[in-house]
Structure formats: C-alpha cells, structure tokens
C-alpha cells in the first residue's frame, strides 16, 4: 500500500490518498494521469492491467486500486 501511495503522489502531488475516497468523481485523476498510473503500476508490481480492468470502480480510490493490484498479482 505504501508503494502505491508513493506512486500516486509522484503522479499527482498534493492529495491525501489515504483519505480521499473518489479520485475519479473529484476529478483528481484525469485520463492522462490514468494512462501514466497504469504504466507505473504495470512496471512496479509486475502485473498486466488490461482495458477490462481499467474501469472507474477499480480506480475510485487507493483501496480499490490496491485490491485490483492484489487480484492481478494472484492471477
């Protein structure tokens, strides 16, 4: 989780990712940030996030992103 928070902070600084609940609805992550984030997550966690996974529900907040990473790591 710490690693994920660090990546998020690098992509878009100035947000408290531990408490923020809606990264999409509150327009914190726009399309370019998501492109960047997906690339970073693929690299850092050695996973393959496919378009099927790139849905708002998975990118809502740090927790949902983390859950997606865990799921893809197990696959």
């Amino acid at each position, binding site marked *: 989780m710490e690693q994920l928070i660090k990546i998020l902070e690098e992509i878009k600084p100035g947000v408290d990712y531990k408490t923020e609940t809606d990264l999409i609805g509150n327009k914190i992550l726009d*399309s370019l940030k998501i492109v960047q984030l997906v690339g970073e997550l693929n690299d850092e966690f050695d996973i393959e996030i496919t*378009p099927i996974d790139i849905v708002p529900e998975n990118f809502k907040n740090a927790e949902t992103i983390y859950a997606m990473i865990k799921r893809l790591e197990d696959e």
Partner: protein
Amino acid sequence: MKNIIEMLENSARKYPDKQVFSDADRSVTYSELLNRVYSIGSCITDLEIKKAPVAVICERSVQNLEIMFGVLAGGCFYTVIDSEMPADRIKTIFDTLKPSAVIASDSCLKKAAEVGGNIKVIEYGKAASHRTEMTKLLRMRSEMIDTDPAYVLFTSGSTGVPKGAVVSHRSVIAYTKWYADTFDITENTVFGSQTPFYFSMSVSDVYSTIYTGAELTVIPKTLFSFPMKLIEFMNEKRVNTIYWVPSALGIIANWKVLDYGNLKYINKVLFAGEVMPVKQLNYWRKKLPDAMFANLFGPTETTDICTYYIVDREFSDGESLPIGRHCDNCDVFILKDDGTLAQNGEEGELYARGSFLASGYFNNPEKTASAFVQNPLNNSYPETVYKTGDLVRYNENGELIYISRKDFQIKHMGYRIELGEIDAAAVAISEVSSVAAVYDKENDSIVLIYEGGQKDTEAVFNALSLKLPKYMMPQKVIRIKSMPHNANGKTDRKWLLENYKNI
C-alpha cells in the same frame, strides 16, 4: 453562401427531424437547434450590439454548440473559453478580446461573473428561451458580408499574451466545403467528437456536420480514461467517423483496447494537431483494415488545416507519415531562409495562401504584420499569405514532410504552446527568481526548472496551476541551486534539457 447560418438553415430544411448534436445527457434535432439558435440570436440583438465579440463560457456540451451558433445568428462573433481555465488567464484573454457580452451555462455563471467584471453576463437558459425576432435577425444578417468574423480562437503567444486568430464566415465556409468533399462527409456521417470547442480541430467536425446534415456526438472527456466504456459509448451512438488528436488514438493503441472490444461502425479515422506515431497508426490499421486513415496538418490561422495525406501505403514503425499535399482552394509553398523557393527536397518554411486564411490577430497589429505578410513571390498586387513557422520539405513522391517548428513553440498533447508563456507564468511566483521551461520531445513532457528560495517544488506546481491551463502544466518541476548560462549570458536551455534528469 455567405453566412454560416445559411448552412444550418439549409440542413434544417432538408432534415428537420434528424438528430444533429448529442452529448451524454441530451440531444437536439436540426429544427430544435435552429429554433434555439434563433432565440439566442434574438437575445443578442436585444443588446444593441453588432459584429461584436461575445465570449462563451460553458462545458463541452450541446449547450455550448447552441450558444456558438446563436452568437452567429445574432450577427456577432464568438470566443469559446475553456471552462476549467484559471480566472487569471481568462482575464488576459478578455483584456485583448474586450467581449461585449458573455453567455454562460448555469454551472459556469459564477466563473463568468468572476472574470467578467462589468461585462454583461447572460445565462444560457434565458437566452435559449428568448422570443424569436426574425425581422431583426434578418436585418442584421443583410448588413453582414462573408469576410466578417465568425469567431476568434486564442492560442498561446510567446510574450505570455495569448493571440486570437480572427476567422471569417468565408474561411469557415470555404474550409468546410473542402473538408466535407475530401473526406466524403454526408448525412450518413456520425462524428464522435473528441476535441474541445476552443481548439481549431473542432471547427472541422462541427461545421462539416452542419453543412452536410450529418450528426455529431460529443464524447465525454472522462471516457478517455476508461477505454471499454468509450467503445461502448461509440457503438451505442453508432459513431462512424472520428477526427481526434493522435494522443487520443494513442491511448487506444497503447492499451490494445481493440483487442478487447470492437468499434462496430468506424470507417474513417482522421487525425491532426501533433505528430501521429506510425506504430500506433499501424495498430489501428490492423484492427480496422477497411477504414480510411488521413493525416491532416495546419494551424488555427488556416481555419484548421492546409495540407493533408490520405494514407495509401504501408509504413514501418519508425517511419514518419507525410503531411501530404495542399487542400483544394488553399495553396502552400516552401521558402528558404534566403527568400527563394525550396527545390528538390530542400527544407524551408511553409507558407499558405487562400480563402482558409484567418484575417489576422484580434487587437494585435504587430503580431498580424509579422505573420500575415505580402506574398514574397508576388510584386504585382496585394496578396496576403500566412507564414506558418513550420519547417517542411518535399519527399521523392512530392509529398510534404513536417520537420519541426521554426522557433521554440512546441506541440504538446495537440496544443500549441510557447514555452516562453510557461516561463512568464512561473517567474511571477513568489520566491522563484529565474525559470526555464524545456520540452523533452522524446518523453513528450514539459519540464520546468527554477531557481529561488522556494524549496517546495509542489508549492511552485500548485501556484502555477492557478495561472496556466492544464495542458500547459509541466510534467516535472525541478529546483536548481543555480541556473546555468551559456556564452551569451542566456539561460542554457540546451544544457538543462540534456541534464535535467541529474539535477
């Protein structure tokens, strides 16, 4: 035809009940659109203004389109303002534009009032429900000629002051005819619009829609974050033609989205605004082998485009795509630094001439005089040509190849940006003494390097975000203890660009 509103009236007569515009929330037919446009136009004639600038502050939506055409029907010209743009920058634009009125959507009213000062702000709902006064509208139109402005479109300028290209009804009509004829835009076309209405590319799909009786659906920006939803939306709307910036096409290609879902109706993929990487184009071509692909090229000052290339052969991943040949009714030529025509593949600056040309820059005679010049090849009569500032050459097939911008101006995410404008905004931040914005082309990223007492780069980033539109924001902000200078005493941007990663 001399007025854009005639295009709309013609199509509304032919296809009154056909859908013209839609977004995620609503849609309008041609006759509904025309009625609303007449209402908004009548509301403007009530203000007793004529051929005056009217600013539009609105989200990217059907409403925004209705207001644009409404302003034209009212005998004025519009400037669409990015509703997410910081107030400071809107004020800079207003200082040049001096709008006579602002029309704003409900949710942008607050912003409009904040930046508008004493300018009259009209709410969309009020304008759209105004009683139509046809006599007044027709009288207004009879006093107009086709070289009267239709809109002023602002691009970033090197001194920190945005430049507003003035584009006339005539240019839009001439340009639209070329676009529709060349790409076979018809009443069966359904555009999936990606570009904002304050960006010249939107002129192409919006006006060719109106001209041919086609349909245009505004794709919500958030869908570009979620590719499967984007595909679903485009299939649901039966989108068959797209005219996007390569970055947007690149999202689909990089994520291999078309491996997971089909675009069922797409038969034309057109792009412009920045260099299209062949690698990504090849992905699209593999997935849509029967579609037409075309690379369009041009500045805001030629309405949108002056040269184009319909992809007619295979390209390998590292190759660059030609920008092709001049459009019909818009000629181009290449001049070398010595003022003579480039020959046999020689490099030089691209010049454009013809009806697509903008009239000049609004309230800016200096910039106008330096870019809109007498044709250096014609000594016999006055003929204005536009210096694009782009370096190009012809290849062995007689196709134009784009090389780069002549000056520091860059293209990033499809937007034209002068790095100097980022510098100007950054150096104004407290505890920042000197700055240099550089563009790392390889990574398509803008890097801002600064010197000053402010140790917190995030604070600089945040201060900057209040001054610059999103697309101009640097991807990296780096503090340097002391700014390097070259032999001439100028900031050594070349060194910074090569070494910023190690600062």
